[in-house]
């Protein structure tokens, strides 16, 4: 296997490798290695302690305190921040919006990216161009993307209203109507991110041996049967991985929301990270904001655990 191939191999396999790397290091202790290790790891460890480990612990601590960051002392308030949050209507509406966004974006995104990945896995002219085209939205900044889409969504002169006028749909006030704004956010987000999943699905599809399809053809299976009986089942691990990863990133959407709708209209697109941002950096309620961040953390940990459990089961099953 050349180095490039090693890098190219499927992301799922890479994740699998997390759980089984060699234990060969158990041998004799190399004194010099120890000193060297300190030297090689120090920069990384300092940054990690300061900007990851300390923050994780400290925001947990903060979530039980009331503090505006300018006063010297944080007041211990027990679970007050959490109870206040769970009793506030705003929090539940924010959680609902985040949920609607996630469950609107993920299935659309996955369906579209799978269709494109399958199409690109077949004999198509100009594959390289097509892949670049579908991937282009992924790499540009969310801020610029949202600025462009604001123009597309313009109620009077926007491209989208012009486009749908041919379908006989009247003009929609995309960003000023609560329902339409969420819809607009989901569409833009799918456009912005389906290229990622297309790449991941492509990697998964390339891992399915051609012989399976040949055998199925001999048995007289049509295209649909092949898709349902071969492609989908064999792609299941990739699909599951993509689903969880997409959910994790959807739960954390911020930039697109900030620029496209600023959480409006009437708070209809205010999502969890936006809520954390507002309370921390607009109202300086550091404790309350930290509590909200921890709720998000718990949601993401649950998703990650589901993912890890699934991967582990597969590893035990296949080795």
């Amino acid at each position, binding site marked *: 296997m050349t180095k490039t191939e090693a890098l190219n191999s499927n992301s799922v396999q890479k994740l699998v490798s997390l759980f089984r790397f060699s234990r060969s290091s158990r041998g004799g202790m190399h004194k010099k290695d120890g000193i*060297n290790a300190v030297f090689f790891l120090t920069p990384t460890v300092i940054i990690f302690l300061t900007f990851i480990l300390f923050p994780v612990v400290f*925001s947990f601590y903060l979530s039980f305190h009331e503090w505006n960051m300018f006063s010297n002392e944080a007041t211990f308030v027990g679970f007050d921040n959490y109870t206040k949050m769970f009793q506030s209507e705003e929090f539940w509406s924010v959680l609902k919006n985040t949920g609607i966004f996630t469950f609107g974006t993920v299935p659309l995104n996955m369906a579209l990216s799978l269709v494109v990945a399958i199409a690109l896995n077949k004999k198509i002219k100009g594959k390289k161009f097509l892949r*670049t085209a579908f991937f282009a*939205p992924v790499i540009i900044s969310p801020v610029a993307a949202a600025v462009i889409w604001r123009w597309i969504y313009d109620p009077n002169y926007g491209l989208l209203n012009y486009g749908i006028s041919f379908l006989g749909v009247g003009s929609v006030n995309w960003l000023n109507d609560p329902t339409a704004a969420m819809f607009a956010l989901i569409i833009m987000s799918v456009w912005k991110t389906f290229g990622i999943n297309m790449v991941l699905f492509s990697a998964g599809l390339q891992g399915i041996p051609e012989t399976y399809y040949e055998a199925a053809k001999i048995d007289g299976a049509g295209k649909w049967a092949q898709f349902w009986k071969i492609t989908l089942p064999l792609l299941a691990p990739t699909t599951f991985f993509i689903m969880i990863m997409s959910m994790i990133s959807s739960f954390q959407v911020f930039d697109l929301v900030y620029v496209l709708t600023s959480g409006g209209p009437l708070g209809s697109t205010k999502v969890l990270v936006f809520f954390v941002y507002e309370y921390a950096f607009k109202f300086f309620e*550091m404790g309350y904001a930290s509590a909200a961040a921890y709720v998000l953390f718990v949601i993401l940990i649950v998703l990650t655990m589901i993912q890890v459990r699934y991967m582990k089961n597969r590893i035990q099953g296949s080795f």
Partner: protein
Amino acid sequence: MKSIKTINMGKSVIKHILIYSLAFLTLAPFIWMILTSLKDMSDIFVYPPKFLPTEFHWDNYKKAFEAAPFGRYYFNSIFVAFTVTLGQLITCSMAAFAFARLKFRGRNTLFYLFLGTMMIPYNVTMIPSFLVLYWLGWIDSYYALIVPGLASAFGTFLLRQFFITIPKELEEAAYIDGATKLQVLRKIIVPLAKPALATLAVFTFMGVFNDFIWALIVINSEDMQTVQLGLAIFRDRYLTQWDLLMAGSVTAVLPILIVFFFAQKYFIQGITLSGLKE
């Protein structure tokens, strides 16, 4: 026989038409952005939309650069993205070398801990990280934009996975000649790991250049704004000045599109490996 061939060809033509239409739709916002950035306002506020500008107004870019200090934003973004990328290449390859080649107590535990941190969302560390920078007096400075990004669990992991595929025999000869670990890393491992380093570099550069929320939190003054932050503020100020807004957007996406054009392979590898996030 002939008819089956014709049917297949027909199918193939339809497939091509569908996929190319989808590609066109995906690219349409880009095309629309560029066209609008070259239009006069009189071409912008018309319905039905006018696709091509009556006249190409290249001076929209000049106007945008005059309306806000995009030149300064540019410098800030590129400087920060470049420094963070360089820093990560150094810190990640050092840490990856330790995990791949050195034998020390607690190595596996530490490595698992590192991997675990990849699962910690940004939003949980964001508030205390801001506070740390506040206490250090680094808010509204390059330090605030650069220092927290100087290490990466993803980068360390990516490089470690690559380093362990490099045969050790190459290094043994160097050690016999009296080379130090650092020399081995620099002279043997790094040159062999160029594809992995390139993936990390391209990926980090893109992430930092496109970053918004962190700059939004730690930067106040106009001098220190990045392109993304500047564009977001520009949007608030020039709500419907679509000519200038689109010129600004083109400016904000151009460097990344250029890098992408030349280094597409590395972007895609990065995505495949990380599974990735917004």
